[in-house]
């Protein structure tokens, strides 16, 4: 803070260097910041431009509340499971004594799978565990009816299973370098000092990994929260999650109030924003030991 107060205006030069990033700033303004601002401002405006909180208040309907709740639940669960499974697979490869040969294919595959999201991913899962999918039919031949057990691909849990296909690889891609960053000497030092494996993980490894884990979790959360295509191709417009609701609203004003659309989108920004602010706060608190 004091740095800014001490700065003398006389020393200010013509900031010619800043002109070099002008194209980038213009692009970011026009196609990232201003469109987002438009949404934020619109959420607080009446249809004739006056200030109002009514749009936000109007979000408080049973249907919209449930959409937000489902979306948050979906994002939290897929981010958590994605982190957990991705972590398990990554540490299996890094520490579990698996042959070195599996590492490179796993990374390549993760790169592919984390980008294999959207419409084709939905098709792949429909073909596999949809009503006429490969596994569904195989299991039926074995006398197991997935439907009878309450599983339906076109439902919340179906969506969870599908989302994990890109969530887990994303976690693997980010966490493997972090696991590689754990030095063998730390493990050995802890060992020599008498720590058990559990103590090493609890007191050394996990605290060191914590920022990466947290960051990936926030990323996975936002990733699932904003995903439209997979859900839309899987279930069509009827599933009640926020991005699909917003999609329908943009296409045909299904809410019957254009500014309510702004409020809906604003809510999405707030939630992913909050997730990231939480991440940044926790990260700065846990990362005092980093340069």
């Amino acid at each position, binding site marked *: 803070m004091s740095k800014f107060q001490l700065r003398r205006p006389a020393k200010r030069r013509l900031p010619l260097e800043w002109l070099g990033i002008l194209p980038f700033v213009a692009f970011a303004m026009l196609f990232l910041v201003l469109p*987002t601002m438009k949404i934020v401002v619109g959420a607080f405006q009446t249809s004739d431009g006056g200030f109002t909180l009514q749009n936000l208040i109007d979000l408080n309907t049973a249907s919209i509340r449930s959409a937000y709740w489902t979306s948050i639940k979906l994002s939290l669960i897929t981010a958590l499971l994605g982190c957990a499974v991705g972590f398990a697979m990554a540490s299996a490869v890094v520490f579990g004594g698996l042959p070195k040969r599996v590492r490179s294919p796993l990374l390549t595959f993760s790169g592919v799978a984390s980008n294999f999201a959207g419409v084709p991913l939905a098709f792949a899962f429909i073909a596999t*565990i949809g009503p006429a999918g490969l596994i569904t039919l195989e299991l039926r031949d074995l006398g197991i009816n997935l439907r009878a057990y309450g599983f339906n691909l076109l439902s919340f849990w179906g969506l969870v299973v599908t989302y994990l296909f890109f969530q887990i690889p994303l976690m693997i891609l980010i966490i493997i370098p972090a696991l590689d960053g754990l030095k063998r000497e730390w493990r050995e030092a802890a060992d020599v000092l008498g720590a058990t494996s559990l103590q090493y993980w609890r007191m050394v490894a996990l605290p060191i990994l914590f920022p990466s884990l947290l960051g990936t979790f926030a990323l996975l959360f936002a990733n699932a929260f904003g995903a439209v295509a997979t859900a*839309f191709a899987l279930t069509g417009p009827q599933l009640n999650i926020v991005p699909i609701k917003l999609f329908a609203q943009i296409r045909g004003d299904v809410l019957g109030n254009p500014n309510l659309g702004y409020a809906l989108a604003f809510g999405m920004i707030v939630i992913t924003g909050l997730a990231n602010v939480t991440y940044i706060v926790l990260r700065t608190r846990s990362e005092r030991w980093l340069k």
Partner: protein
Amino acid sequence: MTRFLAWTAFLLGVLYFILPLIGMTEFSLKMRRGEYSFDAYRAVFGDPRFWETFSYSLTLAAATIVFGVLLVVPTAYWVRLKLPQARPIIEFITLLPLVIPAIVIVFGYIRLYNTSSILPLTGSALGTDILLTMGYATLALPYMYRAVDTGLRTIDVATLTEAAQSLGAGWFTILARIILPNVLVAVLSGAFLTLAIVIGEFTMAALLNRPAFGPFMQLLGANRAYEPPALAVIAFAITWGCMGLIQLVTRFSKHERAKV
């Protein structure tokens, strides 16, 4: 014990990832009753809309890559060379697309650039194409910037620039002849990743109402049974191809360096 757990975790994971791939492949071959055939693929490739939308998306991906490189390389270079104090801001901006959902961004576009605005991009097909390209550039920005910036970190930007300047090179020459070739691998990695993202993108294209590959796939999925898994196999192959190309250029560059 550890090894057993590791294998279990790994194999369960592999099973989860391989089953949908088998599922979609198997399903896509089942169009003809009672035997496996490539009928679904024949139907997909015989559909003129497939080629139209695919080449449209490919064109847009190319435009996005060109625009992205022209935008990101000079900026990342300039920030490293002259404006290290702008780094945190630039990095923050490049990470925003990971936080703000694409659907929100495109919603902003539609409202900001509608026919009654100062910049009525959505008023014409060309304008909308430009808008969509910008949208894709936004989506690819985090990956592109990260790739190029990492590439720049491995070379000594300041020394190279001073050396080029002392030999009389201008800014354009420095960027095109010195910096770009040195970060070519990074740029190509970013480009192929952009291609993988753009080619099947659905949300932006659908909401801007453009005839792209993503919306086409969605439409087909809503109306047909066997063509969608065939499309999924094709899309998966394209994604795999993009990642394979990234590996290829990276490996190639390592060999080049090793030779020197």
